[in-house]
């Protein structure tokens, strides 16, 4: 854990040359297996929750010893029905898949922001606040300004990116100049952003004309992401951003410097890398990505600005990034998984009455198990070689 040399031992930074595809897959196998087993384990714990909270099953367990088959089959049925509805709602139809992807998009971009910061050794808990600031700026431009179609969308998106970038950049600046720990600063700034949003929503400029509710109008149609193949184009922008982050991290000089700072700041400083610059830059970019998530909500999802605009997206973005293990591809896949759980969870709630909170529990458990490989190996009694874990930010200082 504390051995920094393992941090650089990542698949996409091979020591010499580029590995073949087969070698890549080979090197990823243990982590794929571990992630899969974590999901299985989380679903198993979720099944216990479903069983103990299902009245029908519990009533059958009352006469467990008379007819054990009865209660067991009821339990299996309850779990099976719930997870089947979840799967149906996630991937069962064209709409389900669109819904999954549209829910995954903000998670993906905000998660990429968290991932990017991870790689520089910063723990960005501030996606929530950055997302809120991005949403505020994008929405304000979106419903107040009067611009031609296309240009309006671009300006609104840019405003959102700038809003998020400023909110993230402040964190990088404070970290670089005063050493203030980013975890504390980002947690606090999340609440400051929420307060600002709540205050703005009391102003007439941010309310639906003629209404006093703390709710803004939806952005003008000229500022919305148009649909393409049943999905709004913001989703594609999200995938482009993922490619951009991948390129930045593994193909650009600045990305190399960032990773160097993340692996060992002291060594990076000795090698002449400007650490302050890396901190500020990465937080600007992370904020921008989280701001893009706000844009996805406002311009893509067509949500009006309310104090619930960010929902739990900012926190889910952290879990997505953790599950993605600090790589862009991993983050994308994790976001799709979470989007699927979210989208399927709604179907599950409608079909079987199981509360949506079950998916929150599942998400938390998956991440917890992925973060504790020793536990998963212990449960499934596998003896893999210990693989290098990404070293994330350690401690407060």
């Amino acid at each position, binding site marked *: 854990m504390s051995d920094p040399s393992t941090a650089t031992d990542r698949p996409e930074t091979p020591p010499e040359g580029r590995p073949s595809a087969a070698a890549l897959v080979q090197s990823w196998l243990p982590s794929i297996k571990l992630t899969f087993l974590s999901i299985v384990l989380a679903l198993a714990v979720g099944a216990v929750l479903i069983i103990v909270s299902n009245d029908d099953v519990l009533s059958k367990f009352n006469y467990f010893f008379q007819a054990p088959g009865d209660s067991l089959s009821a339990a299996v049925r309850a779990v099976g029905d719930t997870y089947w509805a979840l799967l149906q709602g996630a991937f069962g139809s064209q709409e389900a898949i669109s819904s999954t992807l549209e829910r995954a998009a903000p998670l993906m971009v905000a998660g990429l922001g968290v991932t990017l910061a991870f790689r520089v050794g910063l723990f960005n808990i501030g996606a929530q606040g950055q997302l809120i600031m991005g949403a505020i700026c994008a929405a304000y431009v979106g419903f107040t300004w009067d611009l031609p179609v296309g240009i309006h969308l671009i300006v609104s998106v840019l405003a959102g990116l700038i809003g998020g970038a400023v909110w993230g950049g402040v964190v990088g600046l404070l970290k670089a100049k*005063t050493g203030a720990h980013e975890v504390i600063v980002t947690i606090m700034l999340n609440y400051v952003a929420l307060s600002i949003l709540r205050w703005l929503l009391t102003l007439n400029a941010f309310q639906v004309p003629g209404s006093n509710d703390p709710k803004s109008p939806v952005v003008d149609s000229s500022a919305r992401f148009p649909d393409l193949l049943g999905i709004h184009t913001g989703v594609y922008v999200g995938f482009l951003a993922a490619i951009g982050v991948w390129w930045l991290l593994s193909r650009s000089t600045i990305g190399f410097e960032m990773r160097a700072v993340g692996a060992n700041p002291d060594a990076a400083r000795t090698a002449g890398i400007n650490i302050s610059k890396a901190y500020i830059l990465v937080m600007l970019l992370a904020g921008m990505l989280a701001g893009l998530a706000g844009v996805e909500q406002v311009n893509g999802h067509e949500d009006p600005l309310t104090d619930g605009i960010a929902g739990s997206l900012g926190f889910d973005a952290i879990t997505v990034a953790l599950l993605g293990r600090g790589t862009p591809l991993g983050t994308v896949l994790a976001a799709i998984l979470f989007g699927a759980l979210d989208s399927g969870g709604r179907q599950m709630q409608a079909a079987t009455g199981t509360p949506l909170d079950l998916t929150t529990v599942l998400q938390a458990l998956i991440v*917890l198990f992925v*973060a504790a490989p020793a536990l998963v190996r212990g449960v499934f009694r596998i003896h893999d070689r210990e693989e290098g874990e990404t070293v994330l930010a350690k401690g407060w200082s």
Partner: protein
Amino acid sequence: MTTAAVTDTAGVPLDVVSPAERRRYARIVSILSVAGLLQLWMWVATSPGDFTFLVQPQTVDHNKIDISADGPTLGLICLLVTAVVLALFAVAPTLRDRSPGISRTLQYGPLFVALMILTGLAFIIGFCVWAYSGQTLDPPLPMTNPLEGTLKFATPLTLGALAGAMCERAGVINIAIEGQFLVGAFFAAVVATIAGSAYVGLLGGIVAGVALAALLAMFAIRYLVNQIVVGVVLVVFAGGTTGFLLDQIPDDKIVDLNNPPILEPIDIPGLSSLPIVGDSVFAQNFLVYLMFISVPLAWFLLFRTRWGLRVRAVGEHPRAADTVGIKVKGRRWQAVLVGGVFAGLGGAFYTVGSTGAFDKDASAGTGFIALAALIMGRWHPVGAFFAALFFGFVSQMQTQLQILQKIPTELLSMTPYLATVIAVAGLLGGAAKPPAADGEPYVKE
């Protein structure tokens, strides 16, 4: 600076001001200046008229006593206090030549703390005078004693911060205070309902808080998972689990499962009839008194017992502690679990300690304010208590000032968070320093 002139007998500079020292100084002076300017503006904006302070909290309607003073005059006095303190600090560097002793106590000793508290009080009174002036109501609303509400807000914050202090002094970062609050609140409500007693409910809260603490310890200490990761995930997990369980309680069973009795206020004989503080401080419920006991208890545990010494050793330098035979992991486990007791009680405040039934997200992010209080209080139980009091006061003023509609309370609500950012950025003078090994898992070699 003129300080280099002070030399010892050998002619070597004895008391040269380091750059860090100078920056700290500049920060103190600039913060005081900003406070002074704000106060000046508030004083100018204070409309003529009396400022009335109602000694009793609003909930009490017997022997109402109010104190009145002319608003602008009171504001001026407060402004002068800030101005004098500012002037003292501005001339302090020049005092160093003639009387270095005074200069030093002014900057670090109890005098420094006293002056800062004095300025803080002056600022707060000046602020209240301004906030309550120029009301359209006739007669104008008096300011009610905010002490009672402040304590109510501060109780869970303090307990949560104590939980954090226990964990982090032992070297385990606890971001999951919010999660401990949630499970504590939920199980306190359920247990209290089933048992029909709010006090038994507290036990339920404690058990739940300790259980989540055990999860934190297991993942952080046993499985060496990054502690910030565990903390964040446990908050999500606790929110999801309590929400899920709450939804699973059928409507017809709500009365049986989530309808707890609440802790009744207990008047402390004699003390509760004291003026000003009596009704506010000594007519609270059991949990508030428990909080008052917990602060010195936590301090005593950490700083005056053998156990506490070892806990702190493990948090500062685990390798050294291990070398002298202290079981690092065991101590950490104990500290985290003890912290769970405090956090569970803090969570219980949100149900049996105040409103009764558990609602989704009952603690509404206050676990993170408790974390902020811990950091503002420099990882010390007493410091955390005062920070929690400050945050509680801000929250209380927010609810009180809501009626006046003079200040957007949404903006007021960000004060604790901004104050914490300013504190960790080292702008309040002296960086907030966590225990040296905070957050570092320990692996025996």
